């Protein structure tokens, strides 16, 4: 219902966009006219609108059918409405300074001359599936589509830190993008990693997503990639890093994006956890992509069920599927491994024998031995959901 209202608003809005003639700042007409196509620059009209200022756009779940999410379909998440609408590569610099021997300021060309590394990694918002929390919690009401998988290419953050020479006693690295609060008041979006995490050779400063430049709305020209960790650390349009000799206590680390320390990030609405920690590694999760919720499945014919599983960087060892709501389980086949940080596609043929409503459930086990939880956790931020997801279908 709510979804439909949003879509209608969205389409109405696109109509308005088509009527307004606009030019970019060099006087070049930019025609976003016509159907929803092109309304969000470099993005697909299939994305669902949560907010237009700042842009928050979700990918419909059916597109999890792609092993590598096309750039146009990757979800969009900004916190502060002062997002970069123009990046001038003549003047853009990535700086690394602070508790270092030799501060550094690099153009994009200079960054791209450093040794490139590529890896495939899941990009998932901390609050993905927040709309499924019960009781409901405030925040962007993502269904399941603040989730994507891509091949990222860039330079190791470690290489940059080696070049600047981190001084003894360094504790954390702050990460800041080109986005700004629209007015004075809200704290600028600055995140941080502990130095040990920042030195992990898989943490990248990426300039390419699926071998193409990042769309502006996904962080052109450079984005931090912290494989295995939620995307709150994947700072977009990364421009400023500062090494500190203390932990960083900025708002977006010390007050926001915190989860209960307890196992599973669990707490109760009437007994909130006294102790919280910054969110970090993703827990193990799996989703059904086909059939979609509410689909009709034909009796007596094999139906090719499939979906995805991923975790925080150990890889997926096993995926089990139930077609009786979680009473009995069968092992799914796993497609070839694209890397330990990637989606792993699972497949299982199902030949339903009796008509009527059925519930498909799926659960994954990571290489590290972590299994999904049978019942959802709850926390005030709506973070880290990883219960078995259940997909109702009708056999007919």
């Amino acid at each position, binding site marked *: 219902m709510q979804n439909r209202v949003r879509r209608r608003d969205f389409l109405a809005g696109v109509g308005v966009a088509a009527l307004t003639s606009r030019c970019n700042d060099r*006087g070049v007409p930019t025609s976003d006219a016509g159907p929803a196509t092109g309304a969000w620059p470099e993005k697909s009209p299939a994305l669902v609108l949560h907010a237009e200022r700042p842009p928050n756009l979700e990918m419909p779940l059916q597109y999890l059918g792609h092993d590598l999410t096309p750039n146009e379909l990757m979800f969009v998440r900004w916190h502060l409405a002062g997002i970069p609408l123009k990046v001038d590569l003549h003047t853009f610099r990535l700086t690394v300074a602070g508790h270092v021997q030799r501060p550094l300021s690099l153009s994009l060309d200079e960054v791209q001359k450093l040794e490139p590394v590529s890896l495939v990694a899941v990009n998932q918002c901390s609050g993905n599936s927040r709309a499924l929390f019960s009781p409901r919690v405030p925040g962007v009401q993502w269904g399941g589509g603040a989730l994507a998988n891509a091949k990222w290419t860039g330079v190791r953050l470690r290489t940059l830190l080696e070049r600047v020479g981190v001084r003894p006693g360094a504790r954390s690295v702050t990460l800041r993008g080109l986005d700004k609060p629209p007015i004075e008041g809200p704290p600028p979006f600055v995140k941080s990693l502990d130095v040990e995490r920042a030195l992990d050779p898989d943490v990248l400063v990426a300039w390419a997503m699926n071998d193409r430049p990042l769309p502006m709305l996904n962080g052109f020209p450079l984005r931090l990639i912290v494989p295995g960790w939620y995307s709150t650390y994947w700072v977009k349009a990364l421009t400023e890093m500062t090494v500190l000799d203390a932990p960083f206590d900025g708002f977006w680390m010390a007050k926001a994006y915190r989860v209960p320390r307890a196992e599973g990030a669990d707490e109760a609405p009437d007994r909130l956890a006294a102790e919280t920690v910054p969110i970090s590694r993703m827990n193990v999760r799996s989703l059904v992509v086909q059939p979609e919720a509410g689909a009709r499945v034909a009796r007596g014919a094999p139906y090719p069920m499939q979906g995805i599983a991923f975790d925080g960087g150990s890889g997926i060892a096993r995926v089990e599927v139930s077609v009786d709501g979680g009473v009995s389980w069968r092992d799914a086949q796993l497609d070839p491994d694209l890397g330990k940080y990637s989606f792993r596609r699972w497949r299982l043929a199902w030949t339903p024998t009796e008509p009527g409503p059925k519930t498909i459930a799926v659960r994954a086990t990571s290489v590290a031995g972590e299994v999904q939880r049978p019942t959802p956790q709850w926390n005030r931020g709506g973070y880290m959901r990883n219960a078995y997801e259940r997909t109702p279908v009708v056999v007919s």
Partner: protein
Amino acid sequence: MRLPLALPLLLAAGCGRASPPSPPDPRVHTIVLPDLAPPELPDAPGRAMLYAACSTCHTPRYVLDQPPLPAHVWAAEVDKMHDVYHAPFPEEMSAPIVAYLVAVRGAGD
């Protein structure tokens, strides 16, 4: 309402400079966001106040995106906007705004 195809082009042609635009510099990346109209929020007492106080930093659609929430959760949200994000609305506006939010997106308490 559908526009004939040529109309957006005509409109687009009307913008910019007298001289033809120079070819875009590939090293300058720009995007133009769709100019979506602000959402129509449900009519209830306090709506005008909400538009006034809650449209500066982000779209008031943030409110429409929320599920029904208990009054104490809405009160905490409005306090957060005021005290933590320094939303520039006078404290006296908080109560009527919370009442509006509870009326349009409330969930008991």
